[in-house]
């Protein structure tokens, strides 16, 4: 048992940390957020060149085999700079599902170019009524000759506008909310019958509402097995949750550091406000919360590839509960201790706060995952 980083892992951490420090100053990030795509192709090309897009994948899949710990290292540093490049939808979700369920041909056509930085992905699972139930899918795929025809709607699809391929969770059999009868399809983002409404999100990411109107795909578009898409997407989302937890940990470190710095310098009543015990104790609570978040992220990263599905699901949900709780505490406390400045656009604090808030909502909030954890671990 040893929970410290290896030399290789430390090198990766330092590399990503350097990128964030150099390329993601607060002013730079504003420009990137306002750019056409909401992220920079030159940054993406650099990720590919440095091998970061290959991190979680096995060597036989063309990756470098760092696994979930590699993803954790990258995402934590990304969190510190609020990096906008679509690593989560492309590498963790899209790449992750193709590596887990794709055929050799699909891996060659999709995963290999993704690792080279030439393809991006988006996962379209959510629908207006789904809330946090991954199986609440009504977008229909019906047989059409050898292939399929997809009709229906998907919402809040991150990175859809930039994605070369959209991975769509569709109902091919079964009734509403049934886990069986769901199938994953890899759909060309520019396919006929797709219309998108693109928008920025609260935290400067990009997402879309998508209508699929009789979108035709071939039989080879099926990722995994027909009617067997649910476990694939469930595991992919669990991995994405753990990656988000790592990002949130980085956000918490950054927002805590900013707040600590602020209360040491801001003077009121003739002293630095950090001299007041009520703020000191709140600051200590922020640091304790971030430590717990880091511990749970590490736990989940170590367990997310366990053979036992219950262990994997519990790990992801347990970590997400912690991140929801700690992220909210650190975010709200940072804003409060910054006073009026904390609610302005001018300081980074509000931007971290917004990202932490959106992370809690993604793939199930604190309450949702507490219930899931409880059903898996306590009531079972």
């Amino acid at each position, binding site marked *: 048992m040893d929970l410290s980083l290896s030399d290789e892992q430390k090198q990766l951490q330092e590399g990503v940390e350097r990128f964030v420090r150099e390329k993601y100053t607060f002013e730079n990030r504003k420009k990137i957020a306002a750019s056409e795509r909401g992220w920079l192709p030159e940054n993406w090309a650099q990720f590919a060149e440095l091998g970061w897009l290959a991190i979680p994948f096995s060597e036989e899949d063309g990756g470098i085999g760092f696994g979930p710990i590699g993803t954790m290292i990258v995402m934590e540093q990304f969190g510190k700079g609020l990096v906008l490049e679509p690593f989560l939808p492309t590498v963790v979700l899209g790449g992750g599902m193709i590596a887990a369920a794709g055929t050799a041909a699909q891996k060659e056509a999709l995963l290999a170019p993704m690792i080279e930085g030439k393809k991006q992905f988006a996962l379209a699972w959510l629908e207006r009524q789904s809330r946090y139930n991954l199986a609440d899918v009504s977008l229909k795929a019906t047989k059409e000759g050898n292939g399929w025809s997809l009709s229906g709607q998907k919402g809040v699809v991150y990175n859809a506008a930039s994605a070369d391929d959209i991975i769509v969770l569709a109902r091919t059999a079964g009734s509403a909310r049934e886990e069986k009868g769901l199938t994953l399809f890899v759909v060309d983002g520019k396919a006929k019958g797709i219309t998108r409404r693109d928008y920025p999100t609260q935290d400067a990411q990009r997402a879309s509402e998508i209508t699929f109107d009789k979108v035709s795909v071939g039989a080879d578009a099926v990722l995994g097995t027909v009617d067997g898409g649910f476990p694939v997407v469930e595991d992919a989302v669990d991995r994405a949750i753990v990656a988000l937890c790592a990002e949130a940990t980085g956000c918490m470190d950054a927002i805590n550091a900013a707040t600590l710095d602020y209360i040491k310098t801001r003077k009121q009543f003739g002293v630095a406000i950090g001299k007041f015990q009520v703020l000191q104790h709140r600051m200590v609570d922020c640091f304790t919360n971030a430590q*717990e978040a880091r511990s749970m992220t590490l736990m989940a990263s170590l367990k997310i590839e366990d053979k036992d599905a219950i262990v994997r699901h519990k790990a992801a949900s347990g970590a997400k509960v912690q991140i929801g709780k700690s992220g909210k505490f650190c975010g709200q406390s940072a804003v409060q201790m910054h006073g009026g400045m904390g609610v302005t656009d001018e300081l980074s604090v509000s931007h971290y706060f917004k990202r932490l808030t959106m992370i809690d909502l993604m793939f199930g909030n604190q309450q949702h995952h507490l219930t899931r954890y*409880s059903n898996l671990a*306590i009531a079972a």
Partner: protein
Amino acid sequence: MDLAFTPEEQKFAAEVRAFVKANLPADVRDKVKHGKHLGRDDYMRWQQALGKKGWLVYTWPVKHGGPGFTPAQRYLFENICAEEYAPGIIPFGSKMVGPVIYTFGTEEQKQTYLPAIRASTVWWCQGYSEPGSGSDLASLRTKAEKEGDHYIVNGSKTWNTMGHWADWIFCLVRTDSKGKPQEGISFLLIDMKTPGITVKPIIMADGGHEVNEVFFDNVKVPIANLVGKENEGWTCAKFLLANERLGIAAVPQSKRGVEALKDIARAEQDNGKPLIENQAFAEKIADLEIQVTALEFTELRVLSTMAHGGQPGPEVSGLKIRGSEIQQRITELTMEAVGEYAAPYLPGLLWQGTNEAPVGPEYAHLAAPRYFNTRKTTIYGGSNEIQKGIISKMVLGL
């Protein structure tokens, strides 16, 4: 990075488990399992068995007669002992005064005191707090004045845990009243049989006798019993507190506590179904279990840092705070699980282990006393507010 234990670590774990199974007296195990009160002899039998194996002082380095466990071994040892319902090791000798003596004591003091601590043949207790000195420990006033080759000690100590069972006490005493309060304190070892010492029980909210007031009336203590230099006892005091921090999180005990809580929630009924099927209550347990996991992995991170020769970072300071809050939450939810059957107070059964029949299930009458008693965890060892003050100053630089 690897969560799995190495083959050597697994072999060690098997050895520990076999040892505990073979050497933990069955009646002591039964008492711990059912949350019953333990007597001096219960602790001593177990600690002396550990002492014979060389494991009582499991945190000590080899050169002072400890086993020199790696951090991973330490973790395994603590967890397996808790899983097998071994009583917690009383820390005053093995975790507190022992390390102070081998760090600051003379060769003679080491020869005199350490063998008995390793073997648990002497019961130590702690004389730190005073009626007027709680969180502000350095304001203590128990005085030690030199007279020939002795100190004459006068004053009183309070919140003295299990002093009524103790053979020796280690005390912080004032040897100088000039200058800063921290600068006139000395660390003294005192034989409890010395004339002039009176131990007076303090009965706690749960009805139990666990702590005492200790009075010193012209108590003669040889100067040879001074550890470290005169007026430099505060260094020993701080060292002792820092040494204490890791274990105080009580992660293995809390893991055991959550499992016991689940058992109770399975046994208790709620609207015709096991209480554990009540979604709201199940989620409270889930939340608690997640808190324990976070604490455990924080401790594991600290241990990994130490295994690589690093010093514990800021994360260690939060362990006492969160560990103590979690211990309290376990007792709070256990009482909630029991409901109105927490009300019957059965002091005979609780404190003397009489044959009185419990009212309701046996765990029920323990729930409230445990809850009342465990409020102490956020107060002792430096209250949580004091801990936050320390982190704020030492870690955050505020």
